[in-house]
């Protein structure tokens, strides 16, 4: 019984995080800010939901599969968001209007 309550808490937390990502997507205007909220909240949201599922399933082969899923998501997610951000910054001519540029270490 406690198992189900605990996993329900985790899954609801994950859904809340993903819903936050959606709200953020509508509130921000500029591409990069939207992407920050959308793509990167996925990391925590998906992980929380899968932790909830792991608690339900207990310790067996399914758990390992779910952990492999989290690892795959966490390796693939940064790559896609990196490419989107890079394309945006290379192709946008008015990037200075949207964000301020800071340089460290005299580059």
């Amino acid at each position: 019984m406690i198992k189900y309550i605990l996993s329900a808490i985790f899954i609801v937390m994950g859904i809340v995080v993903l819903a936050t990502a959606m709200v953020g997507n509508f509130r921000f205007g500029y591409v990069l800010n939207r992407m920050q909220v959308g793509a990167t909240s996925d990391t925590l949201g998906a992980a929380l939901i899968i932790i909830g599922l792991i608690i339900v399933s207990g310790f067996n082969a399914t758990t390992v599969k779910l952990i492999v899923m989290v690892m795959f998501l966490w390796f693939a997610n940064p790559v896609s968001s990196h490419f989107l951000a890079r394309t945006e910054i290379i192709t946008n001519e008015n990037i200075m209007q949207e964000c301020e540029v800071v340089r460290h270490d005299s580059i």
Partner: protein
Amino acid sequence: MYVLLFLLWIALNGRITAEIVAFGVVIAAAVYWFMCRFLEYSLKSDIRFFKNFFRTLQYMFVLLVEIVKSSFAVIKIVFSKKLDIQPQIVFFEAPLKSDFLRTILANSITLTPGTITVDVDENRFCIHALDYTLAEGIEDSVFVHLLMKMEESYND
């Protein structure tokens, strides 16, 4: 790594029988050979990994903590009444030499909500941050220190 591949095979099968174990030994060996031959993987990098095992665990833990912390920061920004954010593009240098560790650093920066690695050129990193507070102190964060320690042990 061979053991890891074998365990993954067993886990994906979901049960242990004689046939599955026999097939697993052969297939794990084939995959390991492929990794050594084409992905520049070797026994040496295995040993290097085991020397850094505890540091790797520590790094994963720090990464988790950072993800949760900055997630809350981003959630707070999203639900704040006025969206007064100052997005920034930050350039900084990280003194890392190996490509692998640079990739790890870039991936962890992108994985933490609120910051995205835009470009990596030699040891120059270009980061986009949702708000200037999220980019503060990024040029000598915990990640960089831990990876520096790992790199030192690589040269031993």
